[in-house]
């Protein structure tokens, strides 16, 4: 086998360096590089240790999920959405369900909405814990990972308890939620919420005073507000650049307007600020979860739409009508009125949007996902150019990329 078999497109060519006999060097980083959080390939042009150009090469994890969606019934798409952003499956579930519910013009009962908010905020904490652990590990602080994964495991246990799966819960349904939460679910969430603020203090104690952590993060990866908007950046990196924008507060969905929380914003725009904001966001999420627990309304868990929502087991076995609905939904799905909607939510990484087009049949005509880190990746070059090679790793960590959602 000769070298040509391994040839990959060069993307960048070395150039002569001005005022010197040297040429710049092309460095290939990834796709199998631990700090790229998956299979991201970066091609960098460097002069010494300074980054001159940077080109991301993605698509290694492309599985054609959008094409697959077109061959499934509406309700069968929910498990696929888990697998896009595998660190925040519940956010994906929610966004897709909201989009289809908007097409169907379904009314979701308040209790289901509150539970959805609760689970989404737990997802946010969980996702930020993975981000913090891996980000710190990239910088060289290995211990933090062990701490954050300890609490993450607690949250995953709650997810397993409620949905039967640690990560790919598929707990959300079009019209509500799949099952009644188990009896001690609320107690377990309460226990976690009581413990969490203390644990966040613990992470901050580990990191904030650490001179290496400060030097590697402060002033690195600057992004201005204008650049952030022009390059499509959303979520914590956008707020760290001084744009006060959070979909939960500014365009509320799933009854977020009933919750009181602060949206942390800062205009420093570096990696350190993104770290600080995410830590504050976790604290706010704990508060939102607490409000959801305290104010949990009574009532149904699913919309009153027998043609869309599966009947519960008991009814299915005793009532002829429920059995027929069950049979119909499972075998031929349900028709969704023709139209198109774009529904966006604030996922842990930024604006996640689902664009669903219906042609009036039981299968979506087109499902498109707008994923936050796909857009944020475009800002990587702006943040890294002119800085040291080692900073690239810190910047990648700060936009919290998940290749599953970038490549889909």
């Amino acid at each position, binding site marked *: 086998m000769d070298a040509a078999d391994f040839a990959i497109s060069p993307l960048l060519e070395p150039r002569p360096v001005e005022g010197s006999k040297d040429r710049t060097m092309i460095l290939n980083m990834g796709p199998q590089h631990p700090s790229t959080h998956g299979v991201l390939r970066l091609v960098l042009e460097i002069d010494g240790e300074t980054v001159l150009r940077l080109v991301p090469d*993605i*698509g290694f994890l492309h599985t054609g999920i*959008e094409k697959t969606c077109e*061959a499934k019934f509406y309700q069968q798409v929910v498990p696929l959405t888990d697998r896009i952003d595998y660190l925040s499956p519940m956010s994906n579930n929610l966004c897709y369900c909201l989009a289809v519910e908007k*097409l169907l013009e379904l009314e979701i009962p308040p209790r289901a909405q509150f539970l959805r908010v609760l689970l989404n905020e737990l997802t946010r904490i969980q996702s930020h814990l993975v981000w913090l652990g891996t980000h710190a590990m990239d910088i060289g602080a290995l211990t933090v990972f062990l701490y954050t994964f300890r609490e993450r495991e607690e949250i995953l246990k709650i997810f397993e308890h409620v949905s039967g799966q640690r990560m790919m819960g598929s707990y959300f349904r079009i019209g509500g939620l799949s099952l009644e939460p188990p009896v001690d679910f609320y107690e377990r969430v309460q226990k976690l919420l009581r413990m969490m603020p203390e644990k966040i203090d613990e992470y901050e104690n580990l990191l904030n005073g650490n001179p290496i952590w400060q030097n590697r993060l402060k002033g690195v990866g600057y992004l201005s507000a204008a650049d952030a908007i022009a*390059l*499509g950046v959303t979520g914590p990196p956008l707020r760290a650049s001084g*744009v006060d924008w959070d979909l939960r507060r500014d365009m509320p969905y799933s009854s977020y307007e009933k919750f009181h929380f602060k949206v942390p914003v800062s205009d420093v725009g570096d990696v350190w600020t993104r770290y600080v904001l995410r830590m504050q966001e976790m604290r706010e999420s704990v508060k939102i979860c607490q409000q959801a627990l305290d104010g949990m309304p009574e009532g149904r868990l699913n919309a009153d739409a027998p043609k869309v929502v599966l009947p519960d087991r008991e009814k299915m076995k005793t009532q002829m009508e429920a059995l027929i609905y069950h049979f119909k939904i499972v075998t031929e799905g349900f028709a969704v009125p023709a139209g*198109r909607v774009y529904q966006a939510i604030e996922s842990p990484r930024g604006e996640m949007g689902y664009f669903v087009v219906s042609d009036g049949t039981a299968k979506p005509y087109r499902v498109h996902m707008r994923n936050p880190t796909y*857009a944020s990746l475009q800002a990587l070059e702006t943040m890294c150019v002119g800085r040291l090679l080692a900073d690239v790793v810190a910047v990648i960590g700060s936009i919290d990329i998940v290749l599953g959602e970038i490549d889909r």
Partner: protein
Amino acid sequence: MDMDSAQERDTVLAAHAGDPAVAALEAAIAGSIVNARFDRNELTLWIARDAIREAARTVRDAGYNFLADVTCVDWYPAEPRFEVNYHILSHGLRRRIRLCVLVDSLDPEVASITPVWPSANFYEREVWDLFGVRFSGHPNLRRIMMPDEWEGHPLRKDYPVEGYR
């Protein structure tokens, strides 16, 4: 365009005359607004193909400052077959607008809006890769998801979903 849709367009545009984007578009390129619909609280405007960059610039200057998404729908076997959808968000107004451009399959080409929003770069590459709609004036129109040497555009409706290719 038949009489009904012309009427629908005029009704929708009149109902949203207070929206800065609609007002600005009507002032700048009124003849290029082909159709309009307001459905499920979402405003969609169909723009003539050669006016899309101008429309994007007008909408941006009218306060819709953030390009959230660009994607495409394949209406095979209907012609014009491709419909490029631009989802644009206004941070100030807390509102969204959708611009659409219809493109036929003989000459699937639209002007790139990367001069207006650099963030369109990846989205347009994705539409080119998966649908085969070209964007003229794009700085780097290469495949993004599929390998460079791939043949065909997988999200087209006539692209097979199973079997060997």
